[in-house]
């Protein structure tokens, strides 16, 4: 496949690995913030190509993983309502809530539909005017603009039966909190898709405030190895800064139009992250102007305080403090077909990535 194969070129990857080996003298831990990076790193077996002193740890950038059980529990309550159709991206459907999961509800008869785009959800709302169609909006700055666009379109088309249940989050507060909490990180492999929307500006504080470098990376093996090399070079030269490796996609200023849409529909609010707790201004809440499409406002539901599963280290793993293999449940009780924590379910979850590719 042109435009992808070039970034999976063995000679280039091995050449980069060789250079990393040659110049890196310090023992360092680099965090890949984004779950997509974790999956790619494990899928291509990149840790086997790195010298022992360069360690990669996974971060909190897996949308499904950081989403609260309360969100899942509420979505399940919605799915049990007679006149509701739940629309969602695929990886949310198997995430365990406190008492069930969406795919179990689906098996019992709930109308839960997997969509690949919010536009599909709008179409479902259009075809089912007597039903309430709720789209489960999770994800970071990457997917949030699509949800914003969906809400704007629904409003324009007068689709009064379309709602978004938003657990959208923004990345920078989480990246700051990790360092504030003392997690040992020597540099960030910055999220490529988030930065496509936001641009590089959101990371500028990190080198200044914390003396850590951020390299915004693409998702192919060549991208990732090159980003690691760039961070190693920064560290060896004691010169932390924000750099873009993923230049073919990410512009320094980001996607202005998407940013405007985000700003039009959403406002910042405090939000709960698995592993990190409540972070100020880290969540995207639907503005009052668009509250007619806000599921939380229009169809309020209450659930009992959710319980995190006993023994599950998902939170610690999302912080980069523990690795999946440190968890007693990992690959024994907790597997992708019987996930205990969200990190084992999602396509971007570090437990799923380690289970699939690096046990």
């Amino acid at each position: 496949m042109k435009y992808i194969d070039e970034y999976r070129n063995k000679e280039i990857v091995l050449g980069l690995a060789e250079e990393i080996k040659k110049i890196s003298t310090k023992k360092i831990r680099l965090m890949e913030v984004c779950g997509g990076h974790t999956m790619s790193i494990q899928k291509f077996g990149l840790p086997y190509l790195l010298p022992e002193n360069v360690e990669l740890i996974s971060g909190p950038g897996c949308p499904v993983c950081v989403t609260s059980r309360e969100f899942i529990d509420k979505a399940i309550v919605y799915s049990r309502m007679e006149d509701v159709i739940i629309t969602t991206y695929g990886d949310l459907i198997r995430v365990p809530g406190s008492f069930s999961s969406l795919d179990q509800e689906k098996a019992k008869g709930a109308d839960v539909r997997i969509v690949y785009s919010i536009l599909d959800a709008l179409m479902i709302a259009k075809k089912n005017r007597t039903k309430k169609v709720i789209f489960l909006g999770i994800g970071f700055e990457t997917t949030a603009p699509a949800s914003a666009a969906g809400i704007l379109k629904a409003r324009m088309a007068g689709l009064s039966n379309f709602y978004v249940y938003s657990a959208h989050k923004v990345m920078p507060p989480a990246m700051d909190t990790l360092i504030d909490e003392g997690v040992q990180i020597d540099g960030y492999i910055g999220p490529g898709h988030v930065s496509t929307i936001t641009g590089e500006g959101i990371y500028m504080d990190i080198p200044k405030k914390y003396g850590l470098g951020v390299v915004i990376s693409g998702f192919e093996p060549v991208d990732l190895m090159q980003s690691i090399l760039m961070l190693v070079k920064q560290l060896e030269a004691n010169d932390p800064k924000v750099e873009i490796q993923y230049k073919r996609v990410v512009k320094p200023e980001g996607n202005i139009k998407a940013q405007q849409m985000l700003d039009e529909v959403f406002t910042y609010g405090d939000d709960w992250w698995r592993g990190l707790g409540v972070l100020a201004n880290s969540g995207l809440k639907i503005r009052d102007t668009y509250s007619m499409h806000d599921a939380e406002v229009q169809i309020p539901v209450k659930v009992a305080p959710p319980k995190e599963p006993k023994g599950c280290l998902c939170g610690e793993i999302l912080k980069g403090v523990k690795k999946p293999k440190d968890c007693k449940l990992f690959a024994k009780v907790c597997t992708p077909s019987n996930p205990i924590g969200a990190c084992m379910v999602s396509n971007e979850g570090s437990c799923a990535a380690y289970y699939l590719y690096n046990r």
Partner: protein
Amino acid sequence: MSKSDTILLGHGSGGKLSHDLIDSIFVKYFDNKYLQQQTDSAILNTEGKKIAFTTDSFVVDPIFFPGGNIGKLAIAGTVNDLAVSGAVPKYLSCGFIIEEGLPLKELEEVVKTMAYEAKKAGVVLVTGDTKVVDRGKCDKIYINTSGIGLLEDKYEGISTASQLKKGDKIIINGSIGDHGMAVMAARNDLNISADISSDCACLNTMIKEVLEASDGIRFMRDATRGGIGTVLSELAKTNNLGILIKEDKLIVNEGVKGICELLGFDPLYVANEGKVIFVVASEDAVKVVETLRKNEYGKEASIIGEISEDHNGTSWLETSVGGKRIIDMLSGQQLPRIC
């Protein structure tokens, strides 16, 4: 939350959940020495003659897709299950469950295809059954086929993989993931137009040619639901052997690669309906590849890996960029109603 107390779509995926279901319900109650083998076909000893016996049901959606239809699948699936056991497929039965309202023309098209494929494969459809259910109680048409094949004594060990040795080569007869992605692309709700055709085909002639060319065929399995990943992982696990596959030897067609990238599927776990994993004695590997390449369904055959010295019980992939990762059984559901 504990394991599900209801049947989930993932239970039909051919991966881990299917295996668990088979073990915890079917084998638990039906338990006998034939079933315990968990082979593609049961090998039965009837008055000195060995026969292979298998059954398979087909629920693919849509029933017509590029490269075939549900009828072609129903013949090829059962013929291939017999053939990979080392048997010569002979007789097939077919059961139809049809939804009220199915256009007769569509049924006729399916049946015509079945007759054509059966003739080509040298098997005879000797008995059948038809049921019609209310509209909405099944989706257009479901087909079950069962098959009987004759098995020579010397091939009895193939289906149980009892003679695998370190250094044996692993061979596949072409590209992977075509069937799954062809069906996926044919589904209307996805709005994908791609130039992909299912690899669905009866492979018994090709397999016969291979068995004639080499006495070193140690194992064969058609890599259907769950893809080659599930076959390889299962093979390593049940025989406590290590397997090492080289990703750059695997062929994935451009269209398949594209849809996999787009939808986040791993071609290793996407269904095939015309691909067989062969494990072959090292000294015969080249000969087997050459034999396969002469057949229309094996033109792109190649050695993709081997039974390795280490990693007992697990299957590994040397990735296209030189890294390494494990190949596990498909977990959960990749695609429902693919065959």
